[in-house]
């Protein structure tokens, strides 16, 4: 997993509540057996005016000019501004894979769906929860100022606006440590393999039918 420490990046506003994972990456792209290459199909139904299928060359597809990702001013954006309950619906990790593959490393929203939120951390992305008023302010400033950049600092858990104003965010210690160091969670868990084995034996003794 890619480590994350700091990022000064261009922000892009996706101004819609309850964006679901079907919108983030439509189902036809879930047929892939790979983890990469989903970026060109991120928000496929909103981004292009034709119907997308896996393997299509997106450089020649007709663009929906109204969709923010297609506006030149947001080219190269790495920080996504989003609204409440972002990432609801399916557990498909293809959604964070597509967002990361496109180039985003940070999402800032008032709230997220639980499974999506956890999936972000597993892919080196930082999902930040900010209060509604702050998110509103970021949306307004971002839309009003071309080249609007935010500085995100994970060690100090702060986001700094171009004005110099900053706000803090919460993250649990384990996720922070893993993200800062780009750690493989499976390797870390297997350090506790003996504890798992002890638990398993005890569990088997009390509910043997689970192991039949």
């Amino acid at each position, binding site marked *: 997993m890619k480590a994350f420490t700091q990022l000064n990046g261009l922000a892009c506003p996706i101004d*819609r*509540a*309850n964006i*679901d994972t*079907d*919108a983030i990456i*439509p*189902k*036809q792209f*879930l*047929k*892939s*057996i*790979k*983890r990469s290459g989903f970026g060109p199909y991120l928000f496929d*139904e909103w981004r292009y005016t034709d*119907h997308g299928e*896996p*393997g299509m060359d997106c450089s020649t597809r007709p663009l929906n000019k109204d969709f923010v990702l297609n506006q030149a001013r947001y080219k190269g954006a790495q920080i996504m501004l989003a*609204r*409440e*309950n972002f990432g*609801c*619906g*399916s*557990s*498909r*990790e293809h959604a*964070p894979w597509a967002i990361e593959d496109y180039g985003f490393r940070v999402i800032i929203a008032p*709230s*997220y*769906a*639980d*499974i999506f939120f*956890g*999936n972000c951390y*597993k*892919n080196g992305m930082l999902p930040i929860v900010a209060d509604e008023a702050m998110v509103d302010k970021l949306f307004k400033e971002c839309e009003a100022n071309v080249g609007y950049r935010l500085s995100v600092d994970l060690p100090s858990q702060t986001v700094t606006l171009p004005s110099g104003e900053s706000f803090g965010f919460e993250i*649990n*210690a*384990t*996720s922070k440590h893993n993200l800062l160091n780009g750690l493989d*969670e*499976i390797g870390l*868990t*297997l350090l*506790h*393999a003996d*504890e*798992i084995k002890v*638990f*398993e034996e005890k*569990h088997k003794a*009390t*509910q*043997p*039918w*689970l*192991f*039949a």
Partner: protein
Amino acid sequence: MLGKSVAGKTLYDKLWETHLVREDADGTCLIYIDRHLVHEVTSPQAFEGLRIAGRKPWRNSSIVANPDHNTPTKDWDKGIEDPISRLQVETLDNNIKDFGALVYFPFKHANQGIIHVIGPEQGTTLPGMTVVCGDSHTSTHGAFGALAHGIGTSEVEHVLATQTLIAKKSKRMLVDVSGKLGSGVTAKDVALAVIGKIGTAGGNGYAIEFGGEVIRALSMEGRMTICNMAIEAGARAGIIAPDEKTAAYLKGRLHAPKAADWDKAVAYWNTLKTDDDAQFDTVVTLNGADIAPQVTWGTSPEQVLPIDGCVPDPAKEMDATKRTSIENALKYMGLSANTPLEDIKLDKIFIGSCTNSRIEDLRAAAVVAKGKKVANSISLALVVPGSGMVKRQAEEEGLDKIFIEAGFEWREPGCSMCLAMNADRLSPGERCASTSNRNFEGRQGQGGRTHLVSPAMAVAAAIAGHFVDVRTV
């Protein structure tokens, strides 16, 4: 200390504590996983990760696997025509061959079906278990008093390699549905009414326990429908305490406990309930008698109303974000404000999905379909049973004939038009009454318009050509 009372535990607390391997200072826990359900869409990258790292599954006898999303529902003799879908299904075949599983039903196996239907059918979902799957509708299995929820593909790999999941404890919500349901009102209507009340984000961060007289009166199939939709309310897990119905459903199933183990298991399952003095973080109450058949009108399951309602008017919504959501939904759905729901005409009908494809669902649908005809204006009406076992049972009862005579197509089992990864889908602008779980934009096909309803309501709509209150049919 004298007089100190120890607060009781909720069912969720009990399930959590009996699976807790270790807990870190910041509350990050390692939870043991008893059952790992696997399908073809969210597993290939996880198995690939195991291979790259040179790892093996910790306990392959915990795995129950089956392709369901990509499999076609007709012309099985032709195989899977889409080469990308075929590769994904064959990749699952190869991964199970290499890594092993307790149960594997490949494409066309007599028992193949939707993973959330076959798990309980085979007796591989039991009370007191932890159950995970790379699929958000894993919440379905909570109907048995199991802690069951969806996980991402990285977590699929983590469970394969370590038999555990890194997790934090959720908050506890009780949804108490008291009283009795009226005739024609089903588990699906209860699920939609709950989502309408608390919203699609209402359950974020919670595990929901469903209780009350209405829940106790539901069959196991109905309980699975309710827990299945917990995720649409934002809750990863929905749970219902096991009782004599749970045991009766499981008894004699292939992988259910046998002989002396059975009595021990049932005695243990009887302890799996929330203590009388336990506290929930949030309690939501509904009265079953107030719930009418529900129909979604928008592009989120919370955009739902009783059948006698009208499409909402965004001009009457004060909250700006909600107003925009309503406007977006009406535009996508091609609906005008204040239209009575009963006036909405349909193009296609879909009866199926992990929400509503079990035998009881098909029976309820057949009761309404019997002796009637699908309206000429409906271009396609599909019935897709949830598994090979459901299909055979329905055919033994003659339900297939009732559907076919009424003008429905009787298909092979699979996820089908719930998410349209196979050939079953809506064309742009087509409108569907669907017994599935999500009415998101493009869910059933790009530009397709989905209205979520119960099986009985879907059949009533098929016959009338527009929505109709099944209680009046």
